């Protein structure tokens, strides 16, 4: 099953997050709490340096929301597979929606198979949280993360995630437009508002200007 191939990657991803979060100054209990309650890797990688910089909570929450808005699409696609489930189970299953399980379930059948999705979500959640716990316990072993380039793991993860999504010329325009705008805003604005503003502006302009056929 494809999910099993993802488990080691997600586990290591979790250890990287746990280690970096502790090195950034978070306490292990805070990192575990975030990983269980938020359970959205990309936004957690984003939040840690913002928390370490003392960014206003509202800016971090808004950034988290913007980064995780992709879940709306996944939830809409997965929902019809769970029509027979009780609402209290749906409320829990919704919390486990993640990129990897969505990709596995949606790639396998249409509409996605509920069992395949649940098995994958359980495996991904277990390996991510397990990885985070291990990472928080081992992370303190590295004294000077910058010396080993570990601070660069944050932008490197984001860049590799965006690189695999660049298919059309318009994708490149949105990504480059957001990057240029974000750099310009970061030079003049305090905190990390440039992320929300550039992210909303570039995606919003793209959605208004591009032909609607590019939604797929």
């Amino acid at each position, binding site marked *: 099953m494809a999910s099993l191939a993802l488990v080691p990657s997600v586990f290591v991803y979790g250890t990287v997050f746990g280690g970096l979060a502790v090195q950034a100054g978070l306490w292990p209990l805070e990192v575990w709490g975030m990983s269980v309650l938020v359970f959205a890797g990309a936004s*957690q990688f984003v939040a840690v340096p913002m928390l370490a910089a003392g960014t206003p909570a509202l800016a971090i929450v808004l950034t988290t929301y913007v980064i995780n808005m992709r879940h709306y699409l996944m939830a809409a696609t997965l929902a019809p597979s769970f029509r027979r489930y009780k609402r209290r189970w749906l409320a829990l299953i919704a919390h486990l929606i993640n990129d990897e399980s969505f990709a596995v379930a949606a790639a396998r059948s249409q509409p996605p198979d509920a069992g395949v999705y649940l098995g994958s979500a359980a495996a991904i959640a277990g390996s991510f949280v397990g990885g985070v716990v291990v990472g928080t316990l081992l992370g303190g072993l590295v004294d000077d993360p910058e010396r080993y380039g570990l601070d660069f793991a944050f932008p490197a993860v984001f860049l590799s995630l965006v690189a695999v999504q660049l298919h059309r010329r318009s994708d490149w325009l949105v990504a480059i437009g957001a990057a240029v705008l974000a750099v310009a805003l970061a030079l003049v604005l305090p905190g990390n508002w440039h992320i929300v503003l550039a992210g909303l502006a570039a995606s919003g302009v793209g959605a208004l200007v591009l032909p609607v056929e590019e939604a797929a």
Partner: protein
Amino acid sequence: MRTYIWLTIVGMAVATYLTRAPMFLALASRPLPPRVRLWLRLVPLAVLPALAIPLVLVRDGRLATSLAHPPLWGAIVVLALAARGVNLLVSVTCAVAVVALLRGLG
């Protein structure tokens, strides 16, 4: 107990749950309007560079323009590898290694 941290974590949890649950619980049988789907597809394409590129190019509120700036080379390495379909963890590890190596040399 650090209130600022936990307040932020709970806020993040609520914000993230609001991206997952409403659509899922409503069991939306109808697809989203195409222009909304287009926007949602573009959001990560815009947010991820908006996040990463300033981390690479902005240092202490100023633009890093020197070629002797290790994160610049790390960014080139990770983009080149990921664009060729190299595994995410391998790409990231190579980029981190390049940055560490250049910092060691510098």
